[in-house]
């Protein structure tokens, strides 16, 4: 708890000289939710892919502290080890469930895949764990043999969460997890996410352009513009007392409800 789980320094991946992710530094602490906000094209999704090892940086350092407390420099880690980390220490929730689920494999199979990927070979155990995770994300366990192809968007997103959390990852990356959902479904999902994050004490990096989502979930915020972090701080401080011109603009554009 006394050390960041992820420490990024001057991480750069430039698509053009002023596009991509430019010299970003950040720390993620165990159990905290770090929000990354900014408009489309500001580099927030690129940053997420870099930090989660899905894309490699041109320069900079990304240090991850694994379960055993061993520091791992992700930029120098071979793909095999990165993929293993991806299955054990990380979770990745994609905006589009189609990118994060196997739509023609049953819900139970989707959840069980990571367990089987780390060597679980007991059908009964896998099924029991899958059932309990369905309950955890508020999907009727009777749907365990249903294919996500026939699930609603909200259910697909819940299944994606279960599929990721089943191996107790310590750091979860979320890219606009409520992106394509109806407002009412969004609220329910956010509530589930908030509860799980709190109960499991996992660290989360969440990319969103929805300030409401950021306010509800994130402890801290980074505001990105044109590939750079232009403001950061406590979520309510950044949103209530924004300093940078761009952040003020972002906050001013939130629809006021009530």
């Amino acid at each position, binding site marked *: 708890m006394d050390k960041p789980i992820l420490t990024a320094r001057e991480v750069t991946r430039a698509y053009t000289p002023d596009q991509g992710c430019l010299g970003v530094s950040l720390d993620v602490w165990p159990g905290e939710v770090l929000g990354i906000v900014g408009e489309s094209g500001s580099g927030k999704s690129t940053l997420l892919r870099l930090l989660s090892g899905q894309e490699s940086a041109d320069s900079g350092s990304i240090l991850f502290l694994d379960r055993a407390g061993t520091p791992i420099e992700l930029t120098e880690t071979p793909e095999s080890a990165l993929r293993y980390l991806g299955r054990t220490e990380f979770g990745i929730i994609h905006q589009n469930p189609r990118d994060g689920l196997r739509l023609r494999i049953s819900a139970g199979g989707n959840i069980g895949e990571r367990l089987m990927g780390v060597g679980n070979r007991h059908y009964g155990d896998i099924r029991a764990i899958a059932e309990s995770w369905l309950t955890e994300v508020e999907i009727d366990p009777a749907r365990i043999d249903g294919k996500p192809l026939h699930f609603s968007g909200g259910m697909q997103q819940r299944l994606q969460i279960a599929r990721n959390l089943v191996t107790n990852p310590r750091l979860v990356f979320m890219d606009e997890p409520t992106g394509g959902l109806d407002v009412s479904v969004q609220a329910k999902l956010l*509530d589930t996410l908030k509860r799980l994050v709190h109960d499991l004490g996992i660290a989360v990096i969440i990319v969103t352009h929805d300030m409401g989502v950021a306010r509800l979930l994130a402890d801290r915020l980074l505001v990105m513009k044109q590939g750079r972090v232009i403001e950061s701080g*406590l979520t309510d*401080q950044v949103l*209530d*007392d924004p*300093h940078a011109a761009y952040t003020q603009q972002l906050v001013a554009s939130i629809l006021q409800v009530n």
Partner: protein
Amino acid sequence: MRRITVEQVSKTFVLHNQGGVRLPVLDQVSFQVDAGECVVLYGPSGCGKSSLLKMLFGNYLADGGSIRIHADQGETDLVAAHPHQVLELRRHTLGFVSQFLRVIPRVSTWDLVAEPLSRQGVEADEINSRVEQMLRRLNLPESLWSLAPATFSGGEQQRVNIARSMIVDYPILLLDEPTASLDAANRDVVAALIQEARDRGAALVGIFHDDALRTRLADRLIHLEAVSEF
């Protein structure tokens, strides 16, 4: 025992999207608050009372000076603190009672009020008895406990918020017009809660527009004046 030391705090809002207008709200403000006293921020509308209170909570960031919080675990300067230190202070030391409840979808009144205790790791049995006691005291009918406050009246929402922020015995309580829009009976309950907090040794900083209440609670007034444009 000293709880808050404010030194030379200034704050100017710069509205970049309105032609870079500069709104100075506080200029070189200094004061201290001790445990067991209730200090009231006093001054005309627009003098920065609310902004100052928010700075004491780490919600607004001061431009200069220092705001030292003397917690049981040690001293932290909010102006220079890392967000984690601020969150830690909010978990154990700083309570903020405001007029507005930020409604969280689907979370029940009970869970909302219990949350600050569970974040501190209090035992479930104790949480349950304290939450029930608090909700009863604030005259929130039992039928509302399992509901999310989104549909409640303004007064009910405010009482949920008061219950939530006063359920923990924070060493420092920041009160932003906690009784606005409450009826007389509930105003008395809240005033009594505030007095009890002071009696147990909490340092209180408040804004009260209600003269009677201010007179009843204030040990000291801190006069703030509107900062002239410069």
